[in-house]
Structure formats: C-alpha cells, structure tokens
C-alpha cells in the first residue's frame, strides 16, 4: 500500500514537468520572425536574427518555457516578432478572409449542386413516324442504285 502511495505521489509531482516540456531553439525559431528581414527566424541569418537567437538561448538557459520565451520576445521586439498575423488592424483580414472564402466556396458548391439537381432532363428527340410502304420501296430502290 505504501509503495502504491509513493508511486502516485511521484506521478503527481512529475506531472507539471511533463506538461511543460523544455523549450528548444528549433521549436521556437519556427514560430518567430526575424523582425528586420520579415522572414522566419529559422531561415534568417542577419545580425538581428543572430541577436534574437542569442536572446532565446539565454531565456532557455534561464529555464523559461516556450510560452514565457515568446512573451519575452514580444516584450523586447513587439508583436511583429511572432509569425502569427497580428489580431488587429489589417492583420485581422488574414484571419477572417480564409474562413470567409471557405464559407463562400461551400455556399457556391451547395448552390451549384442544387441547380444541377433541379434541372429536368432534356426531352429525347421524337422518333420519326415509320415510312409508308411507298416511301420504303423508293428508299430501298435508291440505296440499291
């Protein structure tokens, strides 16, 4: 029983550490921009990108998690350091327009399907009346000529 209680206690104590994995530079670089170059930090090598990387490394060394490091980056470099579009001003359009396009596209497809299904099939061409015996004889005569 004591062993079981000790195990449960160990699991409870270990849970927070498991929930906040240690931050890593490659993981953060993907979600951060080089503020001067306008490119993701992962593919930037300008002086400011190097400075940002050094800043992230210092924060990792200080034991901060990814969320805290991103908050510290915003504190230092402004909201533009995050690769997500800003959630104000023109940046709102980048969040709204794709969703709007999906909704409009779905509505367009639904509308087109309804129109397509609602169409009555075109009437088949009327079968011509059979030839009279006289016309049939003349046709046969013409074909054998």
């Amino acid at each position, binding site marked *: 029983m004591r062993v079981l209680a000790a195990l449960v206690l160990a699991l409870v104590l270990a849970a927070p550490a498991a929930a906040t994995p240690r931050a890593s530079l490659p993981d953060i670089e993907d979600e951060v921009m080089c*503020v*001067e170059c306008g490119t993701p930090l992962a593919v930037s090598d*300008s*002086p*400011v990108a*190097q*400075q*940002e990387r050094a*800043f992230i490394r210092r924060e990792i060394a200080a034991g901060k998690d990814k969320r805290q490091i991103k908050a510290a980056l915003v*504190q*230092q*470099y*402004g*909201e*533009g350091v995050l690769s997500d579009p800003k959630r104000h001003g*023109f940046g709102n*359009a980048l969040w709204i*327009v794709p969703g709007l396009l999906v909704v*409009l596209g779905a509505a*367009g497809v639904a509308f087109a399907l309804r129109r397509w299904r609602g169409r009555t099939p075109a009437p088949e061409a009327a079968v011509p009346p059979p030839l009279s015996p006289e016309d049939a004889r003349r046709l046969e005569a013409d074909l054998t000529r």
Partner: protein
Amino acid sequence: MRVFWPVTLAAAALVGLLAYGVASKGASTTLDDALARGQRPAAPEKALPRLGAPGDASLADYRGKVVVLNMWASWCPPCRAEVPLLQKTHEAIAPKGGVVLGVDTQDATANALGFLRKRRATFPSLRDRDRSYVHEFGVTGYPETFLIDRRGRVAALRRFPVTRQWLDQHLPKLLAEPA
C-alpha cells in the same frame, strides 16, 4: 455573357483588400515631400519608454531645444559607426540648447544598453520596440536622423548615416533660431 455577381463582387473585394495591404506596407515620403517644398512639418510625437531609465518621454518634453533625433538599433553596423560623432555632437550642442535623442528600435534592452555603454554614449534614448513610432517618420532602414527645430518641427532629415558635413550644414542655423 452571364455575369455571376456574387463571384464578381467577392473577387473585386479580394483585389481591393490586396491593394490596401500593399499600399499600407509602403514607406511614407510625406516628410521628404514637405521638406522638398521648403516646409517644416510637425514632428510626430508619442510617449515611449526611456531606455535604461524609468518612465516615458516624448519629443514634446524637448520642446524649446534643437533635437538630433537618431533612429538606431544595436544590431545595425552603420549605427555603431556613427555613435562617436553623435556623442561629440551631443556634447557640443548641449550648452546651446540642443540634444541628441536616440530612438532604439526592435532591440533587446540588454543589447541596447550594452551598445551605448561600450561606446560611452551618454545621450538619452527611447525604446520603440515595434517600430510603430519610426514608421511615422517613414523610416525604412537604420540609421536615419531627423533634425527637429525648437518648435517641434522637422527641419531636415537624412536617410543614411549622418556625417559631420551634414550636421554642420544644418545645426548652426537651427541653434541660432529663437524658441
């Protein structure tokens, strides 16, 4: 030909949005144009945190002084090169009612303070962390420098590193103007 209006309107709205986005990202040349016409436009003012000191400050706090407003960042190599000239200028114009005021942009505070300390620069600086303030001056690169007269108007600008010649050309006249 049939026109499907919802699709046409949606396409037009998207093109309009794209055009607005492109136009809003462009650099403003309002100050350059006004100076070219011989005007002195009012300098944008905004309270910004002081670098290495508590509280905020803005250009309004320097009204009555001639301000050499220098936009810089510690990661910008040309900015490093011009600091000695700016420091000398600051020391020279201080007794005549002038000041060099730096605006440090998109920079880590520790790096910015280390940058000034290493070069023994004592002129004050403000922090524009997201570049929103320097954008109002149409700044596209670093360093850029603006001369602000005693009435808070832009009297000259330089979109490259400053030179002794450029400062000598403008500063004596501005310092001689009454407040």
